[in-house]
């Protein structure tokens, strides 16, 4: 069963260095999850200031606005799609992910099957 792990960055605290999510922690995690063979897809996203939002109204008019959006507390920083037997295994990977530390969180969502 496929699950998407949506990695939400924690609020950045410049005074206290985040625990367990240094670049080397990310590299170690990425290697571990990739080597285990469960990864279907994964990306990390560029900084939020590069984001652009598109909305199309009922009359077809397109609105393009510059992200980021004020008061967004959880910022999607990247994702993994993994294929594992059940939710417990997906939750274990989420807990290992450095994104779940230092005030961040990982949202685990099953991928719908049609």
């Amino acid at each position, binding site marked *: 069963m496929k699950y998407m792990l949506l990695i939400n960055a924690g609020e950045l605290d410049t005074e206290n260095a985040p625990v367990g999510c240094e670049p080397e922690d990310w590299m170690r995690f990425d290697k571990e999850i990739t080597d285990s063979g469960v990864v279907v897809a994964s990306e990390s996203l560029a900084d939020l200031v590069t984001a652009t939002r598109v909305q199309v109204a009922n009359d077809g008019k397109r609105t393009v606005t510059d992200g980021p959006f004020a008061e967004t507390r959880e910022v999607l920083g990247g994702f993994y799609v993994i294929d594992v037997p059940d939710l*417990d295994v997906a939750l274990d990977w989420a807990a290992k992910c450095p994104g779940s530390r230092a005030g961040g969180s990982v949202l685990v969502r099953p991928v719908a099957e049609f």
Partner: protein
Amino acid sequence: MDQVEAVFREERGRLLAALARRFGDLDLAEEVTSEAIEAALVRWPVDGVPPNPGGWLMTTARRKAVDRLRRDQVYAAKLAVLQVDMDRAAPQATGGELPDERLQLFFTCAHPALAAEDRGALTLRCLAGLTTPEVARAFLVPTATMAKRIVRAKQKIRDARIPFRVPDPHELPERLPGVLQVVYSVFTEGYAASSGPYLQRLDLAEEAIRLARILHRLLPAEREVTGLLALMLLVHARRDARTGPDGSLVLLEDQDRDRWDHELIAEGRGLVVTALTGGAGPYAVQAAIAALHDEAADFAKTDWAQIVELYDVLLELDPSPVVALNRAAAIAMRDGAEAGLALLDELADEPRLRDYHPFALARADLLHRLGRLPEATAAYESALRLAGSEPERAHARDRLASMEQT
């Protein structure tokens, strides 16, 4: 027929657990469990009880499940695990008994991915065998609301694929407290109803004990399971003495201790010893405190010094404001009302205690004992406002009335 149904109540949980694990779907498991039991109720009185009743039920239920899935391919496709499971050999029923897979079901029903309010409901429904209206009554919500909650929870189990499995030993310390919490919360609602005409709801307390007994049989070496069962037995032993003939609340100090259930106390005390051996958890310590109350010949002879020591241990294991409140009440008994009140006042800003009836009541009683009557009146008024059940309200009203007379 009632007797037969009582037998099935126990069997139902086992059957349901085995089928849920096999098909990965509680809905289907519930449906075919009921159908198999209905079939047994029709057939057995005519054909006689089969030599292997558990096996008969399992085979019947499994056949009905496979039929149902052949008819409904869309549903079958949803349960992706099924293809494997349909081919796998049927679990072997030994000696007429089904393999007991209820522990898996306990962990699924109490899974942290489910909403906290749904875990108790599912556990009562699947493991205690309560019907949806009965579960609704247990949680004091309309049947339709409860039905929706149960449907939602079962859907999450199926669609997010929450597994039916016992956590590995290294996961148990993280997962077992959740299961115990579900059982204990059923018990506490039975011990002191959060609303309604009765102080206690004995049927709920007894369901919780029944669940804890099953858990204890399944996990005999887990000290906190033993501790929880001991705690509930030692507290439940006082049930008959906790209310007067009119249903009014009788405080521990006024209870007729001859009316305590000495058989339960003996059983609970035996379990406490086991639970405390080799490192005690919070339930075992609470059980030890309950045992000290149960062992005292009367209220004055209670070993308050040891109770305070146990609360000190408990506060380290579980540093919660409610434990601190109970410790303060014990200190008031050991060292006097003044000492207890000083501790209570330190806790006054705790958000969890601000609207907590036992806190207001404990404070009112201590103020009363110290002769600080206007403050005691105000505290009893808070207690009256925060009381849950009608007997709790009546008790607070009585106290207020007695203040006016003095």
